[in-house]
């Protein structure tokens, strides 16, 4: 076979058919075990409840109507408030870390690795570490007792404070990494230009650095808000299941309460909230950065 023909044949084969053969296994797996289950969940949320879990044939909107019960509206509102607060705290703590990280030289790889590491370590182990720290006989209390600052142990565990501490502790790396990614690409000559034009450090930050890092901020907020919205481990283990979040509600419907269609409806509410957030993110990302012309 001539060289020319072989090269042409190779380039030609890079089109449709060959591509699809590579895509098919993963595409099918994702379709079958990700998309189909989500659709099945939507279907379940619209069907009457079966006696022993599961559903019965039919169509109903009762599971969505149930959400207007004050009990469930409270859970929904609490979940949104807790997730938003967690996102705000993560932003306040995470932005400075990303900023310093992006400007560091010598220690950058180590500092970055120290952020990446908790990103991947077991959520369960991290939650347990918080319990170990906050319980009545935990380290915080025993240090305070020893120092004579308190006479008896403070109730730290099984409080809203403990849940928030656990959430922030778990999701903070999700905020730092995307912001770092945008700050790392920041062109230093832009800051020099601002400086030459007379901008003081504070002005340089608010008018150059911050606007440019905005896509990273939005991505980070989303990456914290989404898992916080669906979380149930921190409120379960650190909150003592006293203040239910929607994640606890869903888990409960699929275990003890055995009301799968209502649990599905609750999941769909979470999923729709997430999709609204993602679409909003895609819109901000496609817009040019403000302040740059």
């Amino acid at each position, binding site marked *: 076979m001539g060289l020319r023909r072989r090269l042409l044949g190779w380039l030609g084969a890079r089109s449709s058919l060959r591509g699809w053969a590579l895509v098919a296994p993963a595409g099918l*797996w994702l379709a079958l075990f990700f998309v189909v289950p989500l659709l099945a969940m939507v279907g379940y949320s619209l069907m009457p409840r079966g006696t022993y879990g599961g559903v019965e044939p039919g169509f109903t909107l009762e599971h969505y109507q149930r959400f207007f019960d004050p009990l469930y509206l409270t859970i929904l509102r609490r979940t949104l408030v807790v997730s938003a607060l967690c996102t705000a705290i993560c932003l306040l703590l995470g932005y400075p870390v990303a900023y310093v990280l992006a400007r560091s030289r010598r220690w950058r790889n180590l500092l970055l690795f120290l952020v990446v590491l908790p990103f991947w370590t077991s959520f369960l182990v991290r939650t347990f570490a918080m319990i170990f720290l906050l319980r009545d006989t935990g380290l915080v209390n025993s240090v305070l007792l020893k120092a004579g600052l308190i006479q008896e142990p403070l109730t730290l565990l099984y409080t809203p404070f403990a849940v928030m501490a656990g959430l922030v502790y778990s999701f903070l790396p999700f905020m730092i990494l995307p912001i770092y990614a945008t700050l790392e690409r920041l062109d230093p000559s832009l800051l020099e230009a601002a400086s030459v034009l007379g901008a003081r450090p504070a002005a340089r930050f608010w008018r150059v650095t911050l606007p440019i890092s905005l896509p990273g901020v939005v991505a980070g907020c989303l990456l914290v808000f989404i898992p916080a919205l669906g979380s149930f481990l921190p409120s379960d283990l650190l909150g003592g299941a006293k203040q239910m979040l929607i994640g606890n509600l869903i888990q409960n419907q699929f275990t003890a309460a055995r009301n799968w269609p209502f649990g599905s409806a609750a999941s769909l509410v979470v*999923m729709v909230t997430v999709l609204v957030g993602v679409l909003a993110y895609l819109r901000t990302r496609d817009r040019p950065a403000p302040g740059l012309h």
Partner: protein
Amino acid sequence: MDRTPRWLGALVGGVYFFLHLPLLILVVFSFNASKFSVEWTGFTLDWYRLLLERPDILAGLRVSLIVGLFATAISTVLGTLLALALARYRFRGRRALESLLYVPLVTPEIVVGISLLILFAGFKVALGIPTIVIAHVAFSISFVTIVVLARLAGMDEHLEEAAMILGADEWTTFFRVTLPQLLPGVLSGALLAFTLSFDDYVITSFVAGSGSSTLPVVVYGMVRRNIEPTVNAISTVVLVFTSLLIYLADRLGRERALR
């Protein structure tokens, strides 16, 4: 460039403390002889010895390793093929597929777990190791694909063309040129997939069934019942193991492609 203000350095130091101190304390106290308090009463390895005597932990470890190996193998192969297709081929439905790739990253874990439970229940599939593997592959593929795509973006396509011009056929080109260059990315993806599988509790708890608890499911039960120093010990083991995997993945991910 401006100097980093001192208050900023202090704040960032504080955040690093907050991120790492709890885990460090956990590790340190897994060697503490006292059973009930955080007072240091002496060094011991008793809690680790107790781990080896607990059949539930050993069984959980076994299930986790089996699930992890299968899930990693499948998701690495599928994810790498998908990355190759996305990077090197043009085909209809590419955009749709790229969006599909990101769906698992933005879906809360609990939603993944219950939707799979509904699917398995609907088809009357018995829950066990196979259903856990299916679930883990479903959420790991995207991570593998993204890591391998990043590697592919840093590779020079001309090397493949050069191999072709020098007379290599497509298979030879793939196995002798493309794959060796891609390998660090593929291994990095595989290590991440294994870590994700090994650490997952939320999704697994819905699709595991009663006879096939993974290690995190067993540990969750221990944390719920009561806190004993053995939980510190098993947490330390898990922590050291996954940190090692992430360190390796990180190193491989940084390795430069031939240019």
